[in-house]
């Protein structure tokens, strides 16, 4: 028997207690995205292997503080979303809206941080065409930023949905789907942070 949420509600490991959170379609989307990004990551490292000196010199110029801040913001936002979803499942409305609002604020803070980071680089003359590392950097973080924008929109939508007094099972499934997408955004950044800022 397990109590995965440490809330006194125990569950067995049996198949009858396993369920697919969210809509099946979100999982198809999430795993497809993971596969695509995995190819991106491998491609980045393969190109790095052909041009190690330039890649390492550029990586060393990266402001790791931005990377750390962005990682902490997204991990914290994911935590808040996961806690909110846990409460929605238990039909506890207290705290759900503030948690989702907190996650949205973390998302906005990430975007603002990225604006400052991009701005600093552009002012220093570092653009998409500076070298291969920065082409990858702007492309990958740009695509990820697009995911962040979409994710923020999704979080706003599920916050509105969760604010209703009674959430239907379909509503819970939609909220879970939105949360899963946001966790994907966080998960992808975790690897981007490692490859672009840390791996030397």
């Amino acid at each position, binding site marked *: 028997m397990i109590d*995965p949420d440490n809330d006194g509600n125990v569950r067995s490991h049996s198949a009858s207690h*396993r369920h697919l959170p969210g809509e099946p379609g979100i999982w198809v989307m999430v795993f497809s995205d993971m596969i695509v990004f995995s190819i991106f990551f491998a491609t980045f*490292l393969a190109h790095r292997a052909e041009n190690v000196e330039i890649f390492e010199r550029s990586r060393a110029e990266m402001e790791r503080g931005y990377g750390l801040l962005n990682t902490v913001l997204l*991990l914290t936002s994911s935590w808040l979303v996961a806690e909110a979803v846990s409460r929605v499942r238990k039909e506890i409305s207290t705290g759900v809206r503030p948690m989702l609002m907190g996650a949205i604020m973390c998302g906005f803070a990430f975007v603002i941080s990225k604006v400052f980071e991009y701005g600093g680089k552009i002012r220093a003359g570092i653009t998409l065409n500076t070298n291969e590392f920065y082409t990858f950097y702007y492309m990958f973080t740009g695509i990820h930023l697009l995911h962040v924008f979409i994710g923020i929109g999704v979080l706003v939508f599920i916050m509105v949905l969760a604010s209703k007094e009674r959430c239907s099972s379909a509503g819970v499934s939609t909220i879970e789907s939105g949360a899963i997408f946001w966790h994907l955004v966080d*998960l992808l950044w975790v*690897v981007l942070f490692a490859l672009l800022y*840390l791996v*030397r």
Partner: protein
Amino acid sequence: MIIQRLRPNRVSLAWAILLMLTLISWESADSASPARLEGLMVIGIAMFKVRIIGLQFMDIGLTPRRLRLGFEIGIVVVSAILMSVYALSPMAPR
């Protein structure tokens, strides 16, 4: 009952572990240890963090076994590919 309430729930525990792993990776980036070893460690930690996010935040750990198995196998395969490509690449001159 009191002890149970004092224990962090699994989601909060996962978040704390993720932050700790993030700091470990961040600190290792410019340390004096061999770069190759650190690079492999950083990639390994990143993929382990992916696993924690998947299992604890996305709740893949509570999904039907096939989905979880697919996720775990995927992490192992991607980790192996990334680490192999990195390990076979030349080192940058200091």
